[in-house]
Every structure is written in structure tokens, then in C-alpha cells.
């Protein structure tokens, strides 16, 4: 069975913590960090291993701060 595994990389300093990505993610991968970036925003981060690399989060991110990777296992 083809299995995919994805991962996201967040441009922390450009994230504004709007949380739109959280709603868009079908696998509940993203949460806001307890830490803040240089502008004082809690930034998005991946909190588990469930990413499927669908890029939904990146597509709705108004600031284009998410880069998405995917491998077939």
C-alpha cells in the first residue's frame, strides 16, 4: 500500500499567527507555538508526525510562510 509522509517548514519570523492553517489541515498537524516570534506573534508549528503533505495549510496561508514536502514510502 502506498503510504505518504509529509512535513512542513514554517518561516517563523513571517508568521502572523492567524490560525487559518489550523482549520485547513485535515490531519490536525498544526498548533500555535507557546513561544512568540520577533513581532510577538505565536507562530504555527507542526506538533505531530501525521502530515500527509497535502499543502492545504500552505495554500490558505495569507502570508505564504509554509513550505511543504512529501515522500512516498
Amino acid at each position, binding site marked *: 500500500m502506498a503510504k505518504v509522509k509529509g512535513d512542513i517548514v514554517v518561516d517563523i519570523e513571517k508568521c*502572523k499567527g492567524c*490560525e487559518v492553517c489550523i482549520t485547513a489541515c485535515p490531519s490536525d498537524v498544526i498548533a500555535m507555538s507557546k513561544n512568540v516570534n520577533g513581532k510577538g*506573534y505565536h507562530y504555527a508549528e507542526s506538533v505531530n508526525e501525521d502530515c500527509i503533505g*497535502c499543502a492545504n495549510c500552505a495554500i490558505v496561508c495569507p*502570508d505564504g510562510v509554509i513550505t511543504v*514536502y512529501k515522500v512516498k514510502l
Partner: protein
Amino acid sequence: MSDIITKEQIRQPENLVYSKTKLLTDKALSYCPGCGHGTAHRIVMEVIEELSAQSETIGIAPVGCSVLAYEFMNIDMQQAAHGRAPALATAVKRLMPEKYVFTYQGDGDLAAIGTAETIHACNRGENITIIFINNGIYGMTGGQMAPTTLPNMKASTCPYGRDVATMGNPLKITELIAQLPGVHYVTRQAVHTPGNVRKTKKAVRKAFDLQKENKGLTFVEIVSNCNSGWKMTPVQSNKWMEENMFPFYPLGDIKVDGQLIK
């Protein structure tokens, strides 16, 4: 390959599925957190990238929150006086008919102070594309009522809600200009969910393709949020938009191939 794979192994260039287009500059966008303007900018730039038209496109920035669009869109741009983007786009396109020319305008810009320019550019059937961001409010100046503000919707100049008896009805300018023979393609989309973003991108692509074929004016409305002006969180504003804006401004094609959809 074994199932155990580290994040480092996944994050390799050959596994890349999505990254921000190089047609957006690296400047941090000046928009509020969660504002649809940023997503709309990115979609338009992705389409221009797909068309390999970075040096073949001229954009016209408006007055409004997106007044600085030329700082973010990595293409040739001009910035017009408030509401005058379609007039400026007309001049640019007539002087350089081989270029893709588009305007990017808010609802205050396009449907209030720029109503005359909008209607006449549409009626003349200029071969330009208009990207219209309708957030139902004047975002930049502090959330005043716009022609597009919904009945009973609160804004800073109608704090008890828009009373249509004294303040007039909201203007569905998109349906209005769709009646004009010079207008070839009119659609209304949104950018708050992945599905909507994909549809909007297809619509923008279609508009640019039709412009290349000199079909007349193409018009893509994007119903968007202004969470700051609406005084909500970004996620709340997207929900409010679905529940309140979409019933009044229904998504979908309004005119295709010069024919109104009924």
C-alpha cells in the same frame, strides 16, 4: 524504504510540493494577520508564474490596504489614484496591447469612488482583467461603511448596522457590470479554504487566458474577510463571511463566454 523516516529526510528539495512563488517579493506583507489580501496576491502571482509572464505583465495597484501591492508583487506595476485603476489600465493596455494588464482593487476603490471608471472600462470592453477584493468595508481607513456593506452589518460609520432605509442598499456591482456587452467573463470566488483557493486560481488563469485572446474585459471578484474591520479573529471572520457574505454575494460564475449564467 522503511517506514522510519526523519523530518530531515523529508525536507529535501526533491520532495518539495509547495513553496511561496518567487513572483512575490520577500517583504513581509503589510496586511493584518489572516487577511485574504495576501492569499489573493499569491494566487495572481502563481498564475503569472504558470504563464511565464513575469516580464509580460503590468499590474495596477489601487488605494486601500493593497496600495502597496507593488512592493509585494514582483512584476512591473503602477499605482493609480483612488478608483482610477481601470482608467490607468486602459491606457497601459492600449499602449502595450501585447502585455497582460490587470487591476487589483478593493470594494471602496472599485465600487465607490471608482464606480465611473469601473463601469466605463467594462462597457468599453477593454482587454484587461479586474481582480476585485470585496470585504464589504473600507479596510485601510478604519472600517467605514462601503457600498458593499451588507444590510444591518456594523461598520464604524454605521455602528448600529447599515439601515437600508437611510443608507441605501448594498451595490452588487459585479452583477451590474456583468450586464455590459464589453464584459466577457465574470465570476465570484473566495480564498478562505484550500478548495476555494484552487477554484479562484483557475478563475484567474481563465481570465488571463481570455485576455490573451482579446475577448474583452474579464472580472474576478474575490469575497474576502477584513477581520480587523469586522472586529473578529481571522477564523471567526471566515465563518462569518460564509454565513453572511456568501448568501448575499453567492459564489460562482456570473458570465461565461459573454453569456450571463441564469
